[in-house]
């Protein structure tokens, strides 16, 4: 191997260190040594459900593929050219393998307590030796149709998916990662090969390992199993999503005991700078906690008046590529419109009166605790590393930036982000619900 560069990053505050290995034409490799029994390894492909329009490898024109291809491809990668189930091969090594697809990524991962190098080699071979046949594609359509059915029965999933379709006009984040039964019926082996050759290439992936791992061995295994290439990253279509929301309210009916709701706040004003985006992400985590957590005024007034009976779930969602960002808050309530109105009212009042410094400092402590404790687990460490790797940033920047944030920063973000016309409400009701309060 020539021209291998190993750069070490260290955080005395966190008591952690990791290295990045770069080899010409090969994926960036991140190794986090940790003295735990299990080792976690993952390959992160920068390819997800939102990549439905792109220029295939070796071609000049853009194509558009049916929804759900990235997820379908992930499922199919676990059968080799001899028709064998690769899960069984991992299992034979004592490795527990799995994968998942999200908006902008497909992640293949395993953990093991022995046979690490062999399992790691198997993972990389699996990713670089795809096999798709008409028979296997047809069988997978049946399995994924079952998976889609399972999500269709989950009122929370339906509520969330409807929210996205109401927030976004054209951006593919509005579509279910799995696609639909109809869209996956149009998937062919040829299409899967096109997507694989375009996205499953060295410049478009990163490899991350955490545990009792030797960086030199890892670099050798990557070089042995992944073909080096001088090709750049794939060409993806950039969707010009309008700033305004597509719809303010959407409802559906399902077998559910009580209406579930999701409130979304959309944002298209996304900075081109990765460090700024990271700062905003951290600020959102503090701000969301201050607004929606069980310690806050909003939650306690909703609970005390019987409008909700359980904590709200909340998150800030964005992708390193900058395609979209939004906040989602979910819960259950007999009067979801009232909860929505009270939420908007509370945030509007907060924008006017400003952020309490003591509240902000407690929110910062919560954030720091969560950053610190993620390093307790090889799996959490490796998966937390993905965003930083995609962004080209040092993961330890999270803790440093979190320490520097101020309540004034939070106020600026509050005013910029939480605008009234960017709020959307999605509700899933029981079949005969008429939006009236039911007293228990």
């Amino acid at each position, binding site marked *: 191997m020539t021209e291998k560069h190993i750069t070490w990053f260290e955080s005395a505050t966190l008591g952690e260190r990791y290295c990045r290995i770069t080899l010409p034409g090969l994926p960036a490799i991140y190794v986090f040594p940790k003295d735990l029994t299990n080792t976690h390894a993952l390959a992160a492909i920068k390819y997800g459900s939102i990549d439905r329009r792109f220029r295939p490898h070796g071609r000049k024109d853009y194509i558009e593929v049916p929804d759900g291809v990235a997820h379908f491809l992930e499922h199919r990668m676990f059968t080799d050219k001899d028709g064998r189930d690769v899960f069984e091969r991992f299992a034979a090594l004592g490795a527990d393998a799995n994968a998942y697809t999200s908006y902008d990524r497909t992640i293949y991962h395993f953990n093991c307590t022995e046979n690490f190098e062999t399992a790691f080699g198997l993972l990389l071979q699996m990713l670089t030796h795809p096999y798709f046949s008409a028979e296997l594609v047809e069988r997978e359509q049946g*399995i994924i149709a079952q998976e889609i059915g399972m999500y269709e029965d989950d009122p929370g999933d339906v509520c969330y998916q409807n929210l996205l379709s109401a927030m976004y006009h054209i951006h593919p984040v509005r579509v279910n990662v799995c696609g639909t039964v109809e869209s996956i019926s149009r998937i062919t082996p040829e299409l899967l090969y096109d997507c694989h050759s375009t996205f499953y290439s060295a410049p478009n992936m990163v490899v991350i390992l955490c545990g009792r791992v030797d960086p030199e061995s890892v670099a050798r295994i990557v070089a042995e199993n992944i073909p080096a290439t001088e090709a750049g990253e794939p060409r993806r279509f950039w969707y010009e999503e309008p700033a305004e929301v597509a719809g303010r309210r959407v409802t559906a009916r399902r*077998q559910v005991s009580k209406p579930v709701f999701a409130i979304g706040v959309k944002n298209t004003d996304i900075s081109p700078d990765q460090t700024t985006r990271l700062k905003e992400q951290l600020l959102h985590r503090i701000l969301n906690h201050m607004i929606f957590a069980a310690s806050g005024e909003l939650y306690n007034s909703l609970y005390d008046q019987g409008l909700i009976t359980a904590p709200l779930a909340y998150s800030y969602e964005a992708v390193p590529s900058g395609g979209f960002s939004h906040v989602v808050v979910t819960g259950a309530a007999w009067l979801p419109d009232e909860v929505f109105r009270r939420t908007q009212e509370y945030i509007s009042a907060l924008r006017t009166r400003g952020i309490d410094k003591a509240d902000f400092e407690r929110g910062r402590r919560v954030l720091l605790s969560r950053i610190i404790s993620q390093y307790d687990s090889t799996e959490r460490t490796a998966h937390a590393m993905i965003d930083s790797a995609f962004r080209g940033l040092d993961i330890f920047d999270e803790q440093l930036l979190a320490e520097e944030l101020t309540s004034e920063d939070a106020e600026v973000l509050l005013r910029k982000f939480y605008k009234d016309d960017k709020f959307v409400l999605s509700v899933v009701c029981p079949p005969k619900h008429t939006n009236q309060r039911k007293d228990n």
Partner: protein
Amino acid sequence: MDLQEIKISHSARLWAVRTRKFKKNVLSMTAILPLGPETTPLDLLFPRVLMRGIDGYPENADLKKRLETLYDTRIREGCSYFGDSLKIGFTADFLDDRVVESPILRGVVDLLAGIWQRPALDSNRILRENEVNLAKRALCDSIRAEINNTAVYAANRCREIICAGEPYGYSVAEDEVEAITAAALTERYRQVRNSAFLTFFYVGSKPAGEVAELLASAFPPAPDCPGVQPPVLAPTPAAAPVYKEVSMPVSQAKLVMGFTAGGMVFSDIPDYYAMCLATEIFGGTTSSKLFVNLRERLSLCYYCGAYYENLKGIIYVSSGIDTQSKEAARAEVLAQLDELRAGRITPAELDAALLSMTNTFRQIEDSPYSILSFCSGRALLGLDCSPENFIKKIKRVTLEDIKKAAGKITLKSEFFLAAQGGEAVRDD
């Protein structure tokens, strides 16, 4: 793993694992209570009310802010069935003192003691009626919300059938919760506080003796406690199979089959380890007989697996299928069980199951939560708490042992949730 037991008083003990590996530590506090309609509705409810405020932090917001000040310390109340007993308590996770150079553990112990012994009361020294009513509403909501997760709904219905007439087969009903008054709840809470034996479990960097001292000064002995109250473990007996079916307007049907495991419950004898391994081969991994055949070969389901409820000697097989595939799925589950009983187990199936279990149990010491989860149940039953010993015993199991264990697995109940088709109505 260095597990120490220390007696705190005649009504409390501590199990502690000292380790400096983690930045997060855990401390749990549990009590074992009877399971049944006389007390369980009350016992599910009062911990929720206790979490709403204590002396010094009487409002929920105050208590939650105090937890945030302790660097996002989380204290959760929990109730679960433990064989034919109910296990209630609280689990705290918090940053190790040395990570933030602050006495977090002392703060956590103080809060746990406040929650258990000094909840916020009204002027009549009763749990606040408004908080009780809100907690009742929340508990009723969660009972009703079972329907939102059809896999859980189907599993609970199967449990009720397979253990009909046993405490474990009991499920709290909404009307039982609605009938509770603040006075009755306060009386039950005081009865439990004054008589329950508390087991604490700690995983963190402090020496066990230091933790025990903190707990001893924060938790005075319970005056009416008779001593250790062991859980009731009674395997569910075999009986003629019972089948039940309901239908709902959902897209995916659920099939849950309940098998008795020949009376084999949680223990340290070789037959127990044989049953664990048999279940793993049957449906515990993606290389198991159920997964490979029902999903990969026959495309009958998205998921299909087996789970050994070792406190009752039950093996559940759960799957999500199309309604019209029910008979094919049932037949295949039983066919694969026959394969297991006949000892038709390939070396690959056996190796995959052994490796999977070895991998899982070796990793137990990689997380304070998995240490807590693995050891606390075993410690309550007086069983060996060493993951390494578990692995050694599993590796001694032979094909003959597995065949013998599988021969005891007998179908007792089936619950089928038929899918009528989801209502895809959407109005904007």
